[in-house]
Every structure is written in C-alpha cells, then in structure tokens.
C-alpha cells in the first residue's frame, strides 16, 4: 500500500500556506515598492535549487493579546542552508509581511537553531534583517529571544564568519545582533538602524533629528562607523555578501580560498615607480598603489566611507588571499586617529581569526595631534592597533612606502610588533620623530646659543633628516628585511606571503588578552 494521498495533500496544503507568507496582498504590495520578499532574497543569494529549509511549519505559541487564532507562517523568519560558490552557507531572512517580521519566541529559536548548526558544521552565516522589532505580545519571551540570539552570535564570533544584511528596519535591541557579527551590509534606501529613533530622542532630550541623520546607511557608513558596506539595493547587498565570502574561509580552522599560481611572477611593474611623488610633502594616493599591487585591481574595500585616512580591505596577490591595511596620506596626511585606529584594529583581528595574511602599507607621519584626540582617548584607541598587530599570528608583511614615524610606525606593524618580513622603498623615512621636532629637543641649547638660531636649527634639521629620512639607517641595523624598488613590490609581496604561509606561532595559553576597548 502506498502512502495515503490525503497525507500528501495535507503536506502540500501546509507548504502552500507557509510559502504564501503574509498573504498575496502583502507580497504584491511589497513588489510594488520594488522590494524582494524574504524568500526571494534567499533564492537570489544561493545557487539555484540548493536551499534546504529549517522550520517551514514553525508557529508561535502565544495565546495573549489576540494572537491565539493568528497564524504567522514560519513565525516571520525563513532559515536554512544553501550553497554559494559551491560552499554551504547558513542564512536567515526575516519576513516583514509576516507580523512585521517581529521577533517572538519561535522566531528566535529558529535563528538560534540555525546558528548552532552553523557552529557545529563550520559554515558561515548570513542574516537578512527586516523586522519591526520585538513581538510585544510575547513580552519577555521576545526579550529573552534576543538575548539567546546575541549569546550565540558571540559564541560563533571567531569560529565562522557572520555577515548581517540590513534591508529594512532594525531598531532598538535588534540592532545589537548585527553589531555582534563581523560585517554589516546595509541598503541605501528602505533600511534604518538605530537604538532610539527621532521620536524617542525628541521626547527624552528635546533634540530634533531626522531618521536619515541617525539611521540611514549613509550616516552609519560615514559617521557612526557602524556598518561596513553600503548597497544600492537588496540584490547588490547579496552580491557584496557573496563577494566577501570569495575571500573568506568557511571557519577558523580552514584557510581562506587561496588560488596559488604555479609560479610566482617577479616581473617588475614600472608603473608603480611613477605613483611615488618626488616631493615628500606631496600626498600619494594609496588606493592607486593597492590597485596595482593586487590581482586585476580587484580590491574589496571595507568601511570605505569611514575614517578615510586608513584603507582596509580584501584582495588576492598572485592568487593568495590577503587583508590589506594601508595609511592614506591623501586624507588627514595619513595620520592615525581615534576612528582610523578602531577601523584598522577590528580589521586586523578579523584577518587573524580567519587565517588571512596581513599586508600593511605604511606612510604614516604620526598620531593625529589635537585636543579632541587626546581627550577622546587616542591613547586607548591607538593602543588597539598595537594590540591587534602584536596579537595577530597570521603572516604579517609590512611595506614602508614613505613616512614611518614614531609610535604610529609601531602601530602599523614594524618588525618589533611581529611583522615577519619588512620591505622599505628608497623613499622610506624611518625615525622616532620628524627632523624639525627632533633637533628642537636634541639641540635646544646649541640653537639658543647660536648667532643665528633659525639658521642653526635648519642646518641641524637637515643633518638629522639626512641620517634618518631614508631606509638605510634602519636597514644598516638589520631592522628591516630589504630595500626594494616600488616596481618590485608586487612580486616581492607575493613571494613573501608564499614563504610565510606555513607560519606557526604559539603564544602562552590564556582565556584571551585584554585589548583596550
């Protein structure tokens, strides 16, 4: 006897109801607005036909406030596994058409189950956030649900890459789940992320502010530094997530997807020499250097709009995945300040947990001077860079392009901070401080006693500069690996990474270090 057709029919009916989500009207309304449904987002993200769903028939169990007879298909979130470039990825997509995508007990359980599965199976997680917030009818069950999601976000941190996409509202406590993940991608329109909205701000502080000023992708990308990528729309956000995965391992015990070439090309790139201005005061656009350094100029810049005086992102150099951290002298003279230190340090730590070699391009005149910087805690923030580099055990290759001054040089991974190989261009200036400042301290009396103090100061500064404004003083003390032409950089960095890729470095066992936060 075959299975009863009624049972099959019942299953089919139940599936239909679940797939209908919040109903045909709501889905049509969404379409009119040019938005994808929660399910369409997952379909667009994964390779066709690879999605395996968890908890399609899940329902809420709330009997209060008129919810007893209400059905929320899937409880407002679709969860499951699908494939991206042949690798499994766990994903959840909140469904705004189902009760506003609000999070209740079952909704939270589905996300938690998915996160636990991803941890066990060692696969990355993508969360597509589009939710009105907590399902208030469920009271503290909803609050507890958020807590359980946060807890698992933290357990997974450093085990598997976690990416959040904000493609709708993400307000109040809900914003902290994305904040605990590695990368946040937000759509330019139809997405808001904030803790307290304009009305609450107005009521409690009297300040008038628009949603765009505090909650838009533009505000978070350039001002708050809360997000990493701005997407044109949902499709673009999913594309960015896939692009990001192309550089990342599935988990912390795997290597990133290197595609090593059979041989390493040491062919010089004469164009690189032309990028270096003759005048040391003329800024060099480090993005142009990166563009020539990496394969096909393919550089995925992270936090492009925030703290532009440092540039971070992923690329491949002769097939090997690298994380690049570079000073940008064209912005704020390439100084390290509070924001750029935070940005750099977080990126370094991401690379380290996921076994991504770090290439550092140095052109740093120092830490940013200023009252706001000192009072804002540049000591604490700058220390993050020092801590992150010293604590990183992945291959660390440093290129000193031009200025490498004082503590800021150490904070850009000098050999002392654990760089495995350090190359300097002939334009490198490696010194504890600038010549003008140094002679004022060193020769205070001599300058004061001189017949023409200004002239004396200039002479002494020139002498100091002659000695230190070159890589050869440091090279002479074997503090760097070699001095190379800019044109040799790509070949040399490729070889340096290959030579260092099998690096093993053990540290004293401990729970974790205490990075200054």
């Amino acid at each position, binding site marked *: 006897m075959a299975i009863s057709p009624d049972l099959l029919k019942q299953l089919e009916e139940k599936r239909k109801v679940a797939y209908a989500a919040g109903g045909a009207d709501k889905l049509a309304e969404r379409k009119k607005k040019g938005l994808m449904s929660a399910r369409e987002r997952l379909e667009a993200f994964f390779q066709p036909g690879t999605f395996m769903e968890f908890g399609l028939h899940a329902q809420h169990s709330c009997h209060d406030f008129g919810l007893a007879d209400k059905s929320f298909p899937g409880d407002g979130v679709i969860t499951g596994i699908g494939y991206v470039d042949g690798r499994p990825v766990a994903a959840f997509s909140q469904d705004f058409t189902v009760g506003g995508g609000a999070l209740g007990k079952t909704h939270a359980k589905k996300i938690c189950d998915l996160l636990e599965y991803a941890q066990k199976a060692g696969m990355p997680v993508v969360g597509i956030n589009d939710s009105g917030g907590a399902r208030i009818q469920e009271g503290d069950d909803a609050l507890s649900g958020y807590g359980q999601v946060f807890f698992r976000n933290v357990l997974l941190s450093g085990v598997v890459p976690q990416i959040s996409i904000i493609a709708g509202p993400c307000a109040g406590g809900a914003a902290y789940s994305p904040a605990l993940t590695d990368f946040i991608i937000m759509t330019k329109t139809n997405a808001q992320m904030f803790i307290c909205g304009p009305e609450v701000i107005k009521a409690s502080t*009297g*300040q*008038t*502010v628009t949603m765009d*000023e505090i909650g838009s992708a533009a505000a978070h990308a350039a001002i708050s530094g809360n997000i990493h990528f701005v997407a044109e729309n949902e499709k673009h956000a999913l594309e960015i997530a896939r692009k990001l995965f192309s550089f990342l391992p599935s988990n912390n015990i795997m290597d990133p997807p290197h595609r090593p070439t059979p041989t390493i090309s040491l062919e010089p790139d004469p164009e690189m020499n032309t990028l270096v201005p003759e005048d*040391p*005061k*003329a*800024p060099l656009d480090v993005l142009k250097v990166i563009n020539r350094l990496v394969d096909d100029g393919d550089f995925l810049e992270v936090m492009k709009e925030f703290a532009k005086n440092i540039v971070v992102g992923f690329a491949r150099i002769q097939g090997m995945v690298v994380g690049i951290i570079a000073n940008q*002298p*064209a*912005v*704020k*003279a*390439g*100084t390290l300040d509070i924001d750029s230190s935070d940005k750099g340090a977080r990126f370094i730590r991401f690379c380290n947990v996921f076994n991504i070699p770090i290439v550092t391009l140095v052109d740093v*005149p*120092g830490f*940013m*001077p*200023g009252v706001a910087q000192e009072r804002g805690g540049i000591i604490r923030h700058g220390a993050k860079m020092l801590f992150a580099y010293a604590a990183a055990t992945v291959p660390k290759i440093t290129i000193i392009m031009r*200025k490498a*001054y004082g503590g800021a040089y150490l904070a850009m991974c000098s050999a002392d901070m654990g760089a495995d190989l350090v190359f300097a261009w002939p334009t490198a200036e490696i010194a504890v401080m*600038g010549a003008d400042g140094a002679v004022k301290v060193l020769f205070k009396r001599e300058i004061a006693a001189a017949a023409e103090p200004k002239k004396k100061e200039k002479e002494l500064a020139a002498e100091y500069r002659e000695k230190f404004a070159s890589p050869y003083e440091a090279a002479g003390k074997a503090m760097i690996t070699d001095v190379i032409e800019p044109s040799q950089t790509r070949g040399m960095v490729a070889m340096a990474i290959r030579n260092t890729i099998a690096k093993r470095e053990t540290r004293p066992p401990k729970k974790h270090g205490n990075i200054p936060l």
Partner: protein
Amino acid sequence: MKKLRVTVEGKAYEVLVEILDEGTQTAAPMPVASAPVASAPVASAPVSTSAAAPVAAPAAPKGASGPGDITSPLAGKLVSVDVKVGQAVEEGAQVATVEAMKMNTYIYAPKAGKVASILVNPGDGVEEGTVLLRLA
C-alpha cells in the same frame, strides 16, 4: 525667515530660522493709533524668539557650515590658496593647500561655483573646520 550665524565650539554655522508666529509681529506696527493693541505683540516678541532658538540649535551640529563655505579638514598651516576671488571653479578643483604632519593636504571644491571670498592668508594657522573660502 531669518538668517542667523551660530557659533558652536568655534565652528560657525549659518542657520535659517522660521519664526512661526511672525504674523502677529508684522501685524503689530500697523495699528498705529491704538497703543494698547501694539504693546501686546511687542510683549510677545521675546517669547517668539526664545521659541525659535531651540529650533535653530539642533540644526547646527549637522557639520556643514554655510552653503558654499570650504573648510579645512584638519589643523595645520595654510600653504596656499590656489584660486582667486571671482574665479569660477569646477567641482573637485583644488582650491587650497594646508600643510600638517609633514604632508600637504589638498582641499577640493565640493561643488562648482565662483570664489566669492577668501578668508585666510598663506602662512596662517588653521583649525579643523576653519572656513578658508566661500563659493557663491
């Protein structure tokens, strides 16, 4: 509408203030003959300005100074102003050079316009946010 300049932590902001009960104010001087009627709106005047003030203040921290103002992105010494008063500039044209931290930082026009005034001289020390020049 009233145009005011507000200085917050050394940064000058130009804000437009709309006085909502302006109607009663402008109406006030009209009945010249009856003094008691005129005095009432006068008394209400301070109320209207103080009511307008909180509207103006939150507008300031948006970060923008007056429209057309080009400010220094960091503290340093002005090396040169690279345009002249009256000159038309394209968006992205280099308009000034500030030296800080052993490096020249070029300042570019955020939009196309005509240089209306230059507020600084080469050699001047400038702060972050100092208005260097204005575009009309």
